[in-house]
């Protein structure tokens, strides 16, 4: 199975919703419009020829300068033919919600919680969308670029002592 087959199959079904296709790091990347992301992943999993039956990983990403700044990247793997594909989708900051894919891949459960924890992306239909790694009382999403990574309460770190 090569990339042209995957793209061809996707174009047959979702020609209007494919926003970008490229190959980076030897891996096919397809950017999909967010309303159909669930259908696309279901199609990639359930189509007998594509057969992407394994969710390698899922993570959030934030490009503050883009029109749709918040994104989710899904890595799918066809274990029979050892082919991988990367699916990206982007949502607006005002309504960062996506359908959950826990109904397709149980492994997505904790990954979606992590993505919610760090980026604040709401996965509609997730069975338990709560923080998983950070403290419960955290009132922001720390990997969004508008928040500083450094602890704001630290007093001993005076820039003068570090030559900055």
């Amino acid at each position, binding site marked *: 199975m090569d990339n042209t087959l995957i793209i061809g199959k996707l174009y047959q079904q979702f020609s209007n919703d494919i926003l970008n296709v490229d190959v980076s790091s030897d891996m096919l990347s397809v950017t999909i419009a967010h309303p159909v992301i669930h259908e696309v992943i279901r199609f990639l999993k359930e189509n007998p020829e594509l057969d992407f039956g394994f969710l390698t990983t899922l993570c959030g990403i934030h490009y503050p300068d883009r029109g749709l700044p918040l994104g989710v990247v899904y890595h799918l793997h066809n274990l029979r033919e050892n082919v991988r594909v990367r699916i990206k989708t982007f949502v607006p900051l005002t309504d960062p919600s996506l359908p959950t894919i826990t109904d397709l891949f149980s492994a997505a459960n904790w990954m979606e919680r992590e993505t919610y924890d760090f980026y604040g992306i709401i996965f509609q239909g997730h069975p338990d969308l709560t923080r998983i*790694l*950070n*403290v419960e009382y*955290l009132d922001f999403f*720390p990997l969004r670029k508008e*928040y*500083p*990574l*450094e*602890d704001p*309460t*630290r007093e*001993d*770190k005076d820039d003068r002592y570090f030559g900055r």
Partner: protein
Amino acid sequence: MGKVPPIYNIAAPPDGYEAPGLFATTLDKVIGLARKNSIWPLPFATSCCGIEFMATMGAHYDLGRFGSERLSFSPRQADLLMVMGTIAKKMAPVVQQVYEQMAEPRWVLAVGACASSGGIFDTYSVLQGIDRIVPVDVYVPGCPPRPEQIIDGFMKIQAQVGKETLRRRYSQEYRDLLTKYGILK
């Protein structure tokens, strides 16, 4: 047969008045002497400083020479909380609870840069020093500190323990300190 040298140490007596069949000193000093030479540490090791502590406890450095070979893995019987390693903010209530479970008198040794100040982990998820949640008696610098440094910190704790008056834990200052940390309501 020659005389075999003793394989144990005898702690030096405190200052006092000596006469034949008589030795007089203060109760504080006697209790301080007993306490400082039998400190039971509770190791709270979360990262590389914990590995250095294992070397400190091992035969080569042998913390047992200071009367501390008996580690207390229950906070109820421990005298000294040794926090070694990065404490994430999610871990902070656990450290505080362990401290609360220790019986008085209790001491705290912050081992390494992370426990003392957050170290290189100046980030939203890491507690910037355990002195934000529990009172600390001695800080050991280093990233991680060598066993000699941990022993040095431990000996500074011993010095404090030996000098502490029996009234200190009942004083208003000490109550205020614990209240400041939210440990005493």
